[in-house]
């Protein structure tokens, strides 16, 4: 883990230290994997729902990484955005920079998909699943490895 970048988020007050909980982290990852399987299953019939599941799988994998390392995002407005910043800080250089860099784009489309006129296509779901799967795999490897 890139401790310097994460320390900067802690200094900023975005991330706070808590007791590390590997068991809860593994449960989060199990849920994230279920979300990915469900997203793939409903992509044709419900792309908006599938996209939300794929996004949440990625977010929960990042939350799992925080839990395993004794960290969490300070609750409040913008917690999802800050989770994305944590991912970029903590998992930089592990071959998933592209996926992590797209977290905020996924977050933005997920938020807008609550409203009329936002577009979620099947291709978007597959892209989200691909990014989320990459993050879930790396975090699983770190926690179980």
């Amino acid at each position, binding site marked *: 883990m890139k401790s310097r970048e994460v320390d900067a988020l802690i200094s900023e007050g975005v991330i706070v230290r808590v007791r590390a909980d590997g068991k809860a982290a593994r449960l989060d990852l199990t849920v994230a994997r279920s979300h990915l399987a469900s997203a793939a299953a409903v992509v044709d019939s419900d792309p908006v729902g599938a996209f939300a599941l794929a996004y949440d799988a990625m977010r929960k994998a990042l939350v799992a990484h925080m839990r395993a390392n004794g960290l969490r995002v300070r609750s409040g407005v913008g917690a999802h955005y800050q989770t994305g910043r944590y991912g970029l800080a903590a998992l930089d250089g592990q071959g998933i920079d592209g996926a992590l860099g797209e977290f905020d*784009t996924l977050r933005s489309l997920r938020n807008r998909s609550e409203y009329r*006129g936002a577009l979620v296509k099947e*291709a978007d779901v597959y892209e989200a699943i691909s990014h989320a799967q990459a993050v879930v795999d790396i975090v699983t490897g770190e926690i179980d490895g």
Partner: protein
Amino acid sequence: MRTSSPLLLPIFRSEGQGRLLARVYLHADRPVTIAGLARELRLNDGALTREANRLERAGLVRSDRVGRNRILHPNEESPYYRELYGLLLKAYGPAVVIGEELARVDGIQHAFVHGSWAARYAGEPGSDPADIDVIVVGNPASGLELTRVSSDLFARLGREVNIMVVGEAEWDAAESGFLREVQSRPLITIDLTCGELA
């Protein structure tokens, strides 16, 4: 700054002069120093200063000094102000920038600026609205790509650009109260050909 003459509106002596005027006139709420302008517009510092002097002598801009920094503002007292503002808005304003970015998304049939920005284009006076509302008509290939467009537009324009997608049949039928309202108010057609001349 002897940049080439602007393709879209070749009445300015150079593209650089057009961009300088557009930055000062269209973003008067975000004043910036000459040095900042040079960086932002990627123009030579000295040449930009000479151009600013020329525009100030002509009464099209005015400047304030803050310490050693000089900050340009549009001269709203100029007899040309209102018309020049309108020209710059049409040639360099959000509709042009939005068209350049939307052009990279496949499946868009038409796109329009609506709401307060469109009203401003249509000549209704008022301050620049914070957000820009855009309606995209058609079946765009990717929601994620539209989201990236929106994010890139925020970086370029310094304003949120809210993009709403409407199917062609829904747009043509205009059965909802919202679409009827949108279509009854000023609409600015966005050129999706990236500024190509017709």
